[in-house]
C-alpha cells in the first residue's frame, strides 16, 4: 500500500484537491489596508468629543470621565466660560491614548453625551507624543467621525432612553442656572409676594 501511495503521490493529489476546491470558492481575505472590514456600531475605537448642532461644545467639564477612567488617562481642567458666567466647560481636556484601554467607561459616565467612541482603530503614529490627544484633537475627531459617534451612543444606550435620548443626537443640553446679574435671587419687587410669586406658589401647592 505504502509503495502505491508513494508512486502515485496520492498525498499530493489529496492536498491539491483541497487547493483546487478552494480555487472555486469566493475569497474572504480583504486587501487591507485598501479594503477594510465593516465595523459594527458600538465599536470602541478612538475617543472623540462632540458638539451640539449649533457648534457649542457639549462637554461641561464635570470631570466624571476622569473619575471613571480605570487607567487614569483623562485629565480635565474645568472653568467658567469667559464672558458667560455660570456656564461650565472644559478649558483643557487631555486623553492619553497610550494608556487608554478602550473600555468606554468614560462615555458611560458622561452626563451630556459629549464623549463617544469612533470606529477608528488605526492609531499607529511615528511619535508617541501624537497620541496625547488634547481638546482640539478630540473635537476634530468628533467632527470627522460624527456618524460613528452617533451610532456608538445609540448602540450603547445604557438606560431606558430617558437619560440618553440620542436619537439623531437629541439636545440633551445642560441646563445651567440662569444668570441675572442685575437681579439675581429675590427681586426687590417680589418682596410683597407679587403676581408671579403667588402663581408659582399656587401651582405647587
Amino acid at each position: 500500500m505504502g509503495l502505491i501511495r508513494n508512486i502515485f503521490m496520492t498525498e499530493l493529489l489529496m492536498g491539491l484537491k483541497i487547493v483546487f476546491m478552494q480555487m472555486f470558492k469566493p475569497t474572504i481575505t480583504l486587501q487591507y489596508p485598501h479594503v477594510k472590514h465593516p465595523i459594527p456600531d458600538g465599536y470602541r475605537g478612538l475617543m472623540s468629543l462632540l458638539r451640539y448642532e449649533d457648534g457649542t461644545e457639549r462637554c461641561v467639564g464635570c470631570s466624571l470621565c476622569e473619575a471613571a477612567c480605570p487607567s487614569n488617562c483623562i485629565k480635565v481642567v474645568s472653568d467658567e466660560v469667559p464672558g458667560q458666567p455660570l456656564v461650565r466647560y472644559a478649558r483643557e481636556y487631555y486623553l492619553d491614548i497610550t494608556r487608554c484601554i478602550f473600555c468606554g467607561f468614560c462615555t458611560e459616565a458622561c452626563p451630556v453625551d459629549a464623549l463617544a467612541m469612533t470606529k477608528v482603530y488605526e492609531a499607529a503614529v511615528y511619535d508617541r507624543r501624537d497620541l496625547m490627544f488634547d481638546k482640539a484633537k478630540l473635537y476634530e475627531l468628533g467632527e470627522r467621525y460624527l456618524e460613528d459617534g452617533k451610532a456608538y451612543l445609540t448602540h450603547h444606550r445604557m438606560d431606558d432612553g430617558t437619560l440618553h435620548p440620542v436619537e439623531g443626537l437629541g439636545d440633551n443640553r445642560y441646563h445651567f442656572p440662569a444668570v441675572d446679574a442685575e437681579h439675581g435671587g429675590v427681586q426687590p419687587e417680589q418682596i410683597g409676594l407679587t403676581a408671579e410669586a403667588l402663581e408659582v406658589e399656587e401651582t405647587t401647592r
Partner: protein
Amino acid sequence: MSTATTKVDTITVTINGQTIQVPKGTRIIQAAEMLGIEIPTFCYQPRMRPNAACRICTVEVTKPMNKMFMACATEMMDGMEVLTDSERTLKDRQTNLDLLLTQHPLDCPVCDKGGECKLQDYSVKYGSFENPFETKRKDFPEDIRSVALDFNSNRCILCGGCIQVCGDIQQVDAIGFSKRGFITVVGAPMGEALDCEFCGQCMDVCPVGAITSRFAKYKFRPWQEEKTQTTCTYCGCGCQYDLRTVDGEASRVTPIEGVGPGQGSLCVRGHFGYHFMEDDRRITRPLVRRGDKLVETTWEEAVSEAARGLAGAKAAGAGRVAGIAGGRLTNEEQYLFGRLVRDVLGSSNLDSSLRYGAINGVTVTREALGVTGMMNSFDEVRAADAVLLIGCDITQEAPILGLAVKEAIHKGEKPVLVADSMKTEIMKRGAGRLVYTPGTEIAVIKGLVKAVVDEGLIDEQVAKKYPKAVQALRSELSGTYKEIETPTGLKKDDIVALAKRFAAASKGIILAGPRVTGGLKGKSAMTMLVDLAFLTGGLTTPGAGVNAITMENNELGLALNGMAPELVPGGGSWDDAEARGKVATAWNCSLPNHQGDTMMEMFDAMREGRISAAIVAGTDPVGRLPQDAGAAEALGALDCLVVSDLFLSETAKRAHVVFPARSYAEKDGTVTNMEGRVQTITSCMKAPGKAASDWKIVSDIAREMGHPLEYANPGEIRAEAAALVPQFADTDVTNAARGGVSTEALEAWLAGGFGTGMGERYDLPAKLNEASGHEMRLYVGELLFHSGSMSTYNWGLMKINDAASLQLNSREARKLKIKEGDRVRLTGDRGSCVVTAKPDPNIMPGTLFFPRHSVLDDVRNLVQVVEGSEEEGSVPQFRFTRVTMEKVSGVAEAEASA
C-alpha cells in the same frame, strides 16, 4: 461598672445595642459619634445649637418610649435605647431624601459641591432610585452679584445652617430667609447683593451646593484635590485649615472643624487670601544691583555677593552690620536669622517687626508675669465673664479671637466692655462703651486704674495678700480726673461705671490692641493694664488675665527667638548675663558685649555711616513706616543691603542683593500664634523659579562666609532651637496650658518695686491730644480684609475690598458736604495728598481713618513719627497724626495734578 460608681451627671444609654455612659444633656447624635456610629445630618453643626430643620437625622427610639426622634436635638435620657439603622429609621430617611429630591436639581455634574455633597452621599447611601413623588424643580436665577459668594436657591434645601452660622458664630446676620414655602430663598435682605465680611462660613456649612465660591467657581473637583493641613499666616490667630491644591495650584481653603484656635472658623483673609502665592509679581530669581538697576543673576553669584558685602562690613568693625526680620519667617528661620546676625556677623544690631509695637505687649507680660504672649487662651476668652477691650478693633485686627469674644457675648449678659477711639463692630455689641479721643489710650487706662483704686474695687484677696503693692499704686494715683477727662473727652462717671462692671466679673480678661502697645508711652500703658488686672484679681484667678494681641503672624516667634536688641533667644533679657551665656554656650561663640541698636537707632546709624551693611528678611520697613521714619534714606545709604522677600517690596527696591523667598505654602516649619501655640506649616505647592526658604538663604550666606550653619531640614533647626526656647519642643500648646502666670515671676515683679519706672509710668505725656494747627486726627490702621503687604497681592481679596478710601464721620461729612467718592485733600506737617472720602457713622467726629495696607503711600507719609524712649520700648509712634481736611473739586484736582 456598678451603679454606685456612676456619677449623678452621667447616664447610660444604648445605641444599636452598644452601651455607653455619657454626660447628662448629651444629644443622640453626640452619643452616636462617641460610639463611632454615623447619623446623617445636614443642619447639625457641633459648634451651634441644634437647628432641627432638615429632619434627616431622625432615628428610632425604642426605650423608654417607641417613637421617632431627631438625633441632633434630642437630649438623651437614662436608659434610652436608640436604633440608627432599623427598618423604620431607614424608611423615614429614604422618604426625607425623596422629598428633598423632588425639588433639588440634578445638576451635580456642574455643581461645585459635587463629590463632597451630603445630599449626594446620603442619596447614594440611603436613598431610593425611584422617587414616588412628583418632582417640581425651582428655576431661580443664580445670584452672582456678590464678589465672593454665589447663591443658587434651586439647590438650597433650606436647612438654615448658613443663617445660623452667620448669626450665632460670625454674628453679623448678613443673610436670612425671605418669603415662604416653595419659594423661600436664602440671601441678603431687601433682595440686594450680599455685601458682608465675606468670612465664607456660610459656604463651609452648606451641605449642598447652594452657596459656592466665586473665586473657585468650576475650578476643582473634590477628588482632584490634595488636602494639606497648614496654619494661616495672615494674623496672630494662627487658624488651622486645609489648603487644597489641584496639580500644585491652590484651589481653595477649607476649615477643619474643632481644630486649632479657630475651632473651624475662618475669616475672609484665611478663606479667600490664597492667591498671592501664584501671583505673577513674585520674585523668582535672585537679583543683584548693577548701577541703579536690579538684574537677575545666578543663585551662587547672589550668595557670594551678599556674603562679600556683609563680610566686608563685619571686617570694617564691630556692629557695622544690622539685621531686621519679620513675622513672615517661621520660628526656625527666625532662629537661624538671629544666629546669622549675632554669631556669624557678630553684631548685636538685630531687630524685627516687633518694633512696630508688639514688643511692648510681649516684654511687659514677660517681665511682669513670665509669660511671652497671651496669658489666656482663646478658649478662656470664650468662657470669660467679662472681656475688656482697649484700643483693639478685634474683629478687624484678630478676627478669630474676635469670634471668641463674640462667643463670650453670647454667653451670659453681654459682658464685653469696649474702650476705643471709634465705634468698632464689637463695641456695638458690648455692654459698656467708652469712645475716647484717638491716641489717648494711656489716659483712659490710667482713668480705669484710678477708678478701681478710688472706688474700692480692688479684689479682696489681692488687697489682703499684697497690701504693699496696692499701697504703692494708690499713692501714684492721687491726681484728679481732670487730667484724664480733658485729653480723652470722657466723663469720670463713665470711666468709673466701666471699671465697676469689669471689677464685678470674677473672670475678667483684658485684651489690649496695637493702639495701646504702639501708642505714646506704649510700655507704660501696657504695664498699667497689668496693674489693672492685678488689682482686679486678674493675675491670681485662673481664666482671667491681661493680654496684648499681636498683629503679624509670627510676632511671638520673633519674641521667643530674641529678635530684638533687648532680647535673647528663649525670650530672656539681653541684660540677663546668664541667659546670654546660655546662648553663647549653645552657639559656641562669644556674643557681642553691648546691647545693639533698635530699628530707629539703626536708621540713624545707617545715615551717619556707623552701619554699612544690613540684611532684611520677611519685612518691609520702608513700606511699613512713614517716610518721616527715614527708613528709605537710611537703607539707601548702605554699602550692602541684602533683602529676601516674595515680592519686590519698597525695601527690596533699594537692596543690593534680593533673594526670592518662599511663601508659607511652599515651605515647612512652625509658627507661633499669639496664644503661644507652636503650629506647623506644611509645604504643598511648588515654589516659583529659584525661590528658597529663608533658612536656606541664611545657611547659604553663612557657608559662603566660612561659618557654616548646616541643616538638612527645618526640623533639625527646631531641635537645636528648642534647647534655648523650650516652647518649640511641643506643638499646639498654649501659654495658658503651659501654666500661665508664674506666681514666682509675679511676686518677684511686685517685690522688685513693681517694675521699673513706676514713678514715670503714671505721668501722662504732655503732648497728649495737643492741638496743633491741624484740627483733624488721622488714624492709619488695620482693616479686616487686608493685613499688610501679602494680602494686597491676592486678586480675590482685592476684589472684595481694595478700598483705599478715607473714612470720616458721616455727620461731619454731611456738614462739610462731602459725599462718598468725593475727593478730599489732607494737609499735615509732612505734606499733603488727595484721597477719596467715605463717610462712616462709626468714626468719631474730628477723626479720620485710613487703612494701612493701602498702596497709596501718600497718606501714610503724612504721619509724623514720634520716636519712643528706651523706657517705652523704643517703639516709634506712627499711627496717629494731625491733618487738615478740605474738599477738592474735580477741576482743582486736575489743575493740581497738571
